[in-house]
């Protein structure tokens, strides 16, 4: 029953050569157990698997060893529902006795695991890829850390870019749950402040693929549509919109302008040029660290071995959270005494070097980091690609507002019709 799949064995093989050459201290003392929780079942399985690759990459970069102690990774899976996520987290913490838990993947799971973390003060929880605002705003947990920015932060900067394009009135089309609410807020916080108007928000039922009703409701007097749907859903929307004779320009959420959209073959393909969107990563970012990260990912997880052609958002976010855990452990020399007091203090204060720039935490242990605003352009071969329009550093969770003034995004908040 206790036959755990220990992937460190595999990573150790890879690491052994490195360690042998460098002659470094090799794995003294008891191993440090890190639980890795991601969604490996259901529709998010591919993303979850890539998240695990990202986390694994961070471990491999250190040769599977921190301060002479082995890092033992124990995996667990959920199906993107919070109850299963907590069950899996409980197994990692109480059965497998991990010291640190990295995960989970989606918003609802994140809130649930954060609540659970309060009952386990002896374990340090670091987020995986979950991006719900509430996790670090309401009922915060002293031992839950999040080194990635969340949905609202990812959209900060797009409002200004929209105004620059002359979009004064925007209709929003987004799925009806917390993540798009936060994305909409990140956009509107700035957009409304600059004088933009959002007369109508159309919330599409989760999983609904028939956008015809929404398209029928698009008012004549808006300048642009902000579409916050997954890439392939966005293509579906575009097709339906084009087929019904629509012609308004589009803006995208953080997960909208994916390769699916760039490969769009419809007649309005050219009108996609100029589509702006925002997010925590940008494939076309020219930063040296980013390029090194992508290259390292490709080397460790070539497509032939099941990796993605380039690291997904999940891989990146899991990577930086796992990196934070390892960097923190390194800084305190693996000292986990006194309920990880030293480690937690270090994590709260440290400046994490990520491929996209420095990240530090606010008083709720939530990342303050970088957001990219990108635009779709046509390259010399006529292919659509993105380019970075603007890089916004130090975006915090309250989007520059005072804590008292800040309200979490909902269907109706913010509002500027």
């Amino acid at each position: 029953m206790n036959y755990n799949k220990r992937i460190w064995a595999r990573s150790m093989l890879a690491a052994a050569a490195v360690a042998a050459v460098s002659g470094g201290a090799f794995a003294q003392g008891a191993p440090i157990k890190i639980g890795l929780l991601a969604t490996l079942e259901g529709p998010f399985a591919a993303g979850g698997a890539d998240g695990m690759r990202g986390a694994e990459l961070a471990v491999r970069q250190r040769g599977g060893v921190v301060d002479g102690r082995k890092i033992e990774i124990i995996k667990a899976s959920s199906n993107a529902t919070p109850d299963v996520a907590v069950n899996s987290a409980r197994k990692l913490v109480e059965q497998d006795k991990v010291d640190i838990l990295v995960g989970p993947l989606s918003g609802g799971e994140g809130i649930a695991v954060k609540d659970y973390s309060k009952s386990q003060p002896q374990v340090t929880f670091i987020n995986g890829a979950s991006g719900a605002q509430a996790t670090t705003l309401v009922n915060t947990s002293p031992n839950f850390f999040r080194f990635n920015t969340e949905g609202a932060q990812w959209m900060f900067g797009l409002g200004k870019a929209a105004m620059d394009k002359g979009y004064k009135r925007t209709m929003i089309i987004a799925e009806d749950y917390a993540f798009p609410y936060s994305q909409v807020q990140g956009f509107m916080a700035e957009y409304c402040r600059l004088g933009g108007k959002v007369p109508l928000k159309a919330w599409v039922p989760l999983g609904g693929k028939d956008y015809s009703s929404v398209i029928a409701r698009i008012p004549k007097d808006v300048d642009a549509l902000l579409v916050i749907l997954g890439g392939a859903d966005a293509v579906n929307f575009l097709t339906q919109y084009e087929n019904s004779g629509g012609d308004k320009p589009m803006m995208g959420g953080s997960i909208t302008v994916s390769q699916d959209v760039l490969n769009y073959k419809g007649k309005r393909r050219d009108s996609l040029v100029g589509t702006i969107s925002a997010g925590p990563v940008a494939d076309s970012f020219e930063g040296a660290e980013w390029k090194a990260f992508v290259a390292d990912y490709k080397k460790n997880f070539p497509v032939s071995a099941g990796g993605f052609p380039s690291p997904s958002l999940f891989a990146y976010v899991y990577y930086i959270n796992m990196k934070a855990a390892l960097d923190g452990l390194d800084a305190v020399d693996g000292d986990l005494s006194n309920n990880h007091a030293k480690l937690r203090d270090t994590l709260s204060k440290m400046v994490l070097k990520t491929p996209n720039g420095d990240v530090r935490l606010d008083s709720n242990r939530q990342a303050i980091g970088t957001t990219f605003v990108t635009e779709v352009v046509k390259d010399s071969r006529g292919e659509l690609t993105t380019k970075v329009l603007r890089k916004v550093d130090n975006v915090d969770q309250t989007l520059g507002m005072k804590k008292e003034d800040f309200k979490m995004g909902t269907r109706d908040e913010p509002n500027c019709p």
Partner: protein
Amino acid sequence: MSAARWRRAMNTGAVGVAAAPLPAVPARSGAARSMSVDRHAAGTAPSRWKLLSRAVSVRHVLVLVFVLLLPFVATPFFTYQVAAQALIFGLIALSLSFLAGYGGMVSLAQMSVAGMAGYAVAVLGASGTESSLGWHWGAVVPIALAIAILASTLIGWLSVRTDGIYTIMITLAIGVAFYYLVLQNYSVFNGFQGFQKVYPPSVFGINWREPLPFYFLALFWAMAGYFFIQWLVRTPFGIALQGTRDNARRMNSLGFNVTAHRVAAYAVSGLLAGLGGVLLVWYNGLISPGSVGTGWLINVLVIAVLGGMKHPIGAFLGAIVFILLQTFAIDLIERERFNLLIGGVFLAIVLFSPDGLLGLWAKLRSRFGSKQAVTSTTRR
């Protein structure tokens, strides 16, 4: 399993294409036996003792000792996540196997009923969400159970007026529709997010969230449910219900109100599912649409079928196997294909051992020569 077949056979006046003999005879003899048992029970004290000693075998004592000692031997994790969770899902599956095994009605909405009770606890009681009303648990729990019973009765009333086979369809439709309702409604059900921090109250100075107290809480209600069903199926109501399962038309002509019996069975199953739902929301500490999604609707059926629906213990047996698989499968197989494993196991059980693990056990025992009757004869 045979109820719909019987009813249809009776309706068309000819036994269908595959005219297999039906186990109606043991059912009647079983019913007769339990009726006579009832008469004994109403008698004097010594015969009651005799009954008790007859009913309680070494097996029962061993199981009781095992479940009572388990939390002191096992780790808190095992006590809470495996044992307590299995007891809760066993209770919910019991509500289904009661309906299906004794009433011949397979309802796929049992998890929805449990979910309604769970949502009632979250909405009316205290949670991490502002829209919760924060009432005292002493008021919340009875209301939650009442809602579950009411909902189950309504579902029963809507579905029993048609043939048995329609039931599965109607209940699935209601169950999935309930899932979409809680997913999309924010004013009451808080949509996709659901409710967090729904914890059991501290009563008598005991924190019922701790593994040990919670295990005994779940054990108490699971056993209560188990013995309640054991008792109920021997009452005149239970026997009449089994009669409606085996031959509704004959029961009707004997003067029984078949519809009323079936709806009442739904009400009983609603109570069990509601209990399970309240415990489940406390166990998880949260409830979200995922808890009542299609996956779980079907998982409850998987649990009940896995264990075997001919005896109440099957539900718990199935739950233990299911929860063990769910918890530890990742250590054995790639977790990605967990649904394939569960689906495959379920398919194999339905195809090769329709009576589940209990049926398998019975087959083994009969093969290796036990003199006792293999399955409890009161079941069919």
